[in-house]
């Protein structure tokens, strides 16, 4: 019997993936329109004409970006997290555990990566059957016993099966576009600031407007991303216990992980959402801010729920 809500979660994820695929280019186009509108004479006809001209360029640009990210995301993520491929002969134990869960679920086995870091964390990534992978820190492999490790692997496997991973990767790719544009805008501000008085005052104002609009779009894109249900962690915990029949093992694994989830190699917050527990605990102490931008539900609550489940 499958945990109730899992099938609908998968469907919701597939739908959200498609919505994101539509929403992000739309947001980008809206941003372009706003920039054109405020930086030109604000003559609607002129603006519309110009906007129609640049639409194909923007869409082709997004398409190219997306194709590159689609093809190279596993390499990028490996670089961003410092993960390396793990060979079967290097660690037979992990391979056996993962293989057995996959067989019992009738799933294709994802690749295995290792992050050489003594703390405990793990994540799943990938978009298709060929690119799905699970990465474990070496601390995870060394400090957890077989049952606990099995629980963690099952948790990551259910992220893959529920299509959480694909949705997240797509959103990360798009947010990447906005952070890229935002960075470009800030660079151009610094650049134009250096040139200072030689240009007319108008151009400085325009750059400021561009920055403001880009910042708004960036913020919206981030909120869209975090709007993606955080329930997925609870659901993945539940379906992992469904797979292994050992919720206690996963609870005790989470307890060990919560003591030390910091992965020093992970510098970008963009990939934080992938992990089983946040690898970069928030520096902001204000609760509401934390809730809005939290990548993970509180681990204590997850442990409590798992123990109830048992």
């Amino acid at each position, binding site marked *: 019997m499958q945990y109730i809500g899992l099938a609908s979660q998968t469907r919701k994820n597939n739908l959200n993936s498609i919505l994101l695929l539509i929403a992000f280019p739309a947001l980008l186009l809206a941003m372009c329109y706003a920039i054109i509108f405020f930086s030109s004479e604000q003559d609607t006809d002129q603006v519309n004409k110009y906007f129609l001209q640049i639409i194909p360029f923007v869409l082709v640009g997004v398409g190219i970006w997306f194709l590159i990210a689609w093809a190279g995301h596993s390499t990028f993520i490996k670089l961003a997290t410092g993960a390396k491929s793990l060979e079967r002969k290097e660690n037979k134990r992990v391979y*056996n555990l993962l293989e*057995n869960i996959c*067989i019992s679920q*009738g799933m294709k086995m994802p690749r295995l990566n290792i992050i050489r870091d003594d703390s405990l964390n793990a994540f799943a990534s990938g978009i298709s059957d060929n690119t799905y992978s699970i990465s474990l820190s070496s601390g995870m492999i060394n400090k957890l016993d077989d049952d606990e490790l099995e629980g963690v692997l099952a948790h990551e496997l259910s992220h893959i099966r529920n299509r959480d991973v694909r949705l997240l990767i797509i959103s990360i790719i798009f947010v990447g576009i906005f952070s890229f544009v935002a960075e470009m805008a800030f660079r151009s501000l610094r650049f134009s600031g250096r040139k200072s008085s030689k240009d007319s005052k108008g151009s400085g104002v325009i750059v400021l407007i561009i920055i403001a609009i880009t910042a708004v779009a960036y913020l919206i894109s981030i909120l869209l991303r975090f709007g993606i249900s955080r329930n997925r962690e609870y659901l993945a915990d539940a379906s992992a216990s469904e797979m292994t029949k050992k919720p206690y093992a996963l609870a005790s694994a989470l307890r060990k992980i919560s003591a030390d989830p910091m992965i020093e190699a992970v510098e970008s917050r963009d990939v934080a959402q992938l992990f089983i527990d946040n690898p970069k605990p928030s520096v902001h102490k204000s609760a509401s801010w934390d809730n809005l931008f939290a990548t993970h539900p509180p681990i204590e609550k997850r442990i409590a729920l798992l123990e109830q489940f048992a």
Partner: protein
Amino acid sequence: MALLIVIGILVLISIWFTSLYNKLVRLRNRRQNAFADIDVQLRQRHDLVPQLVDTVKGYASHEKELLLRVTEARTAAMAATTIDDKIKTEQQLTAALQGLKVQMEAYPDLKANQNFLQLQEELSDIENKLAAARRFFNGATTEYNNAVESFPGNLIARNFGFQRELFFDLGEDTRRRMDEPPKINFGNP
């Protein structure tokens, strides 16, 4: 008008009938595919058994009967072609191997043999994978059986040769052995 309604109803019924029939076919195929996973592990176990028997022979030559039983069970299992036959013969092989394992506890020399230890480890790895594959297969079988036996699937199932299928469980022999308390010999062997 009445004719159109009748035709409409007939079309609806045939669509419904087709989808039900296709569902049964899909579930039956899924069960068969799930067995392919099991088959991979079974074949590896077949390959391993002769090596195991050869190794044991050198240390425990008077366990001839036991070894013969294992070899015969393997031959029978390899000869089986249908899923049902395979399930039955493999249950016997599992039971025979289990018996061998228990008996080997009495041979400390054998248990110190590197080759034997490695074979044992490989065998237990295969058994673990077999257990996992069996879980998936039995899940698929449950789903199929439910569809075959519950209304309205049973109406179609009866007329088109879909029937309740076997689970792949441990088999009575093995289960009985596992329920027995282990024999402990305190005296001289």
